[in-house]
């Protein structure tokens, strides 16, 4: 039986990152000097408020009353039965306000921005979930909101673009590079450099220069903390496995981090395998990439032999990112988290299964984690428990799903 165990020797999670934001050789602050001062200002503010009781209390109040936490840990009984092995539990981040885990982080960063006296918020978005979550907190606090979004993604994710506009945000199309998430991030950084005095940049994933990977992790760690409590409540013990999808890796690091020292809990991150790892058309830097430097941190990247960042491919726009949070890179290297990939096809199959069997439409991102549960559950006994982080709901993906089936809505 699993219990909350002593910290695993040599891991000592509370020591990471170091004061310069390094997770082993990963992380750091690889930014131009022009950004150094605002990043330093943010580091100091975060250092101060992360330990401030009033700040923490306000964050928790917002999570409860605005986001709707805690969300349930739901036993997917029929699906578990069909798979014939371990019991599958779904952490229902899809039931948060705005429909995904992204709001945990934007609430936290917006509160920080308010304390720092910043009146203008900028953000990047891929699928649009982070953009919507940012526009939401900006409306909530009466702050100006500018969201950078790749031109390609604006076409692919039209409903979310409209949501952001409804919430009062300005959506700026990004036409440089591959016109997707990574380019939106570049453009937001450029905006920040030029407007450092009044602007706060809310990064949506656990990447970027220090302190972003740590800060985004901390604001999302509520996921893992709740999984822990709810597992004990429902089953009397910790889960045997926790599975989460990994693009930049914010929902996964939030789900995993509280378990890092519980060595009996297996942690599995699932990357976007696209058309299959062997085809090269995917978004799985941890599975196939090499360490490099992009967007302010050292981490695993999808790149060519000359060190140019290459285009990624995934049915899910939210996983379509060539890098990954630096803590994941480190957790891979030390072997604490196992990283695997699920293909587009596997994710789509899992999506349909969950719709039909459990009455839940999952986000295509989260469906990658579900797809791995399909492989894993039958190999485990019926007395074992797997938690899958259902990081978001799939309403945003219905156009994509319909298109794949040749249906025009």
């Amino acid at each position, binding site marked *: 039986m699993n219990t909350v165990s002593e910290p695993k020797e040599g891991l000592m999670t509370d020591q990471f990152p170091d004061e310069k934001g390094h997770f082993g050789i990963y992380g750091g602050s690889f930014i131009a000097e022009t950004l150094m001062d605002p990043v330093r200002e943010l580091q100091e503010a975060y250092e101060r408020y992360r330990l401030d009781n009033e700040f923490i209390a306000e964050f928790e109040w917002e999570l409860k009353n605005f986001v709707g936490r805690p969300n349930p840990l739901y036993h997917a009984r029929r699906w578990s039965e069909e798979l014939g092995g371990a019991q599958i539990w779904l952490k229902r981040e899809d039931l948060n306000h705005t429909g995904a885990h992204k709001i945990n982080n934007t609430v936290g960063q917006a509160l920080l921005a308010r304390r720092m006296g910043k009146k203008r918020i900028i953000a990047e978005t891929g699928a649009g979930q982070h953009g919507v979550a940012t526009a939401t907190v900006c409306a909530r606090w009466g702050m100006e909101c500018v969201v950078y979004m790749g031109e390609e993604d604006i076409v692919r994710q039209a409903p979310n673009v409209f949501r952001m506009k409804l919430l009062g945000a300005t959506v700026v199309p990004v036409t440089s590079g591959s016109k997707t998430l990574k380019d939106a991030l570049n453009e937001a950084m450029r905006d920040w450099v030029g407007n450092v005095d009044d602007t706060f940049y809310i990064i949506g994933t656990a990447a970027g220069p220090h302190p972003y990977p740590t800060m985004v992790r901390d604001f999302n760690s509520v996921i893992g903390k709740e999984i822990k409590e709810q597992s004990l409540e429902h089953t009397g013990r910790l889960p045997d496995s926790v599975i989460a999808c990994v693009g930049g890796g914010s929902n996964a690091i939030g789900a995993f981090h509280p378990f890092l020292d519980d060595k009996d809990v297996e942690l599995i991150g699932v990357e976007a395998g696209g058309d299959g790892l062997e085809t090269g058309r995917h978004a799985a830097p941890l599975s196939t990439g090499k360490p*490099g430097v992009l967007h302010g941190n050292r981490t695993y990247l999808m790149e060519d032999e000359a060190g140019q960042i290459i285009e990624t491919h995934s049915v899910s726009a939210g996983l379509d990112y060539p890098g990954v949070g630096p803590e994941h890179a480190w957790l891979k290297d030390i072997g604490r988290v196992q990283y695997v990939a699920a293909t587009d096809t596997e994710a789509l199959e899992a999506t349909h299964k969950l719709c039909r069997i459990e009455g839940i439409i999952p986000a295509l991102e989260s469906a990658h984690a579900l797809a791995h549960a399909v492989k894993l559950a039958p190999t485990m006994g019926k007395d074992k428990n797997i938690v899958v982080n259902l990081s978001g709901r799939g309403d945003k993906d219905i156009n994509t799903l319909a298109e794949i089936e040749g249906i025009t809505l």
Partner: protein
Amino acid sequence: MTRIATRFSEASGRKLLVPYITAGDPDLDTTLALMHTLVRAGADVIELGIPFSDPMADGPVIQAACERALKNNVSLLQVMETVKRFRETDQDTAVVLMGYMNPVERMGYERFADLAAEAGVDGVLTVDMPPEEAEELVAQLRRHELDSIFLLSPTTPDARIKLVSEMASGYIYYVSLKGVTGAANLDTTEVAGKVAHIQSLTGTPVAVGFGIRDADSAAAVSETADAVVVGSVLVALVGEHGQQTDILHSKLFDIVNGMRQAMDAKAGAAA
């Protein structure tokens, strides 16, 4: 003495002119020819941009140049080969490679330093490599007496100016405005004050760049700066006339030479 240091020590009151172009835009043969034109127009140091897929600190003009170069898959290795070809006929003009970390990471610091030195490169500026992270790369570059050039910004506090000064050699590049390359015009009076302050904190020459677009602004900045860097305005010309070589060379010569003359006139008037 390194080539960059020689240029500064032999300047005797004259300020150095440092034009930037992106290597491989629109192709490497054109880049090589443009380098020689820049020298004829009065360049002391050429900053040669290493194209990168995600140039975060650059504005739209240099982004577009990177995209044009990457259409032909121009690599760091090929950029170095171009410097080697430049060195076949020019031993005096200093060449600084300017770019982002990832291509250098991919090549490996040691190999990068070896190949850069062998090609005749004099200095390296990787914009997303702050001094805190740069120890290993700087050590590799020092093995070959290659200069490590770092940026300072209007918001850099004094303690950091000193830190940068300890690691930097060749020159320190002061980014004269908040923003990306090619941003709006700069306030030359404000820049002059800041440059004088930086010079009081370091013995390394101070180059000023970002926002310099014509002979007047170059001359004004050169009153205090030890060197003037000009980039986006030249790269915009390459973008516009990349396929009309004759026009490109003559326009590029005119603007750079205009800056040269205005800066020299300023230096002469001051002397």
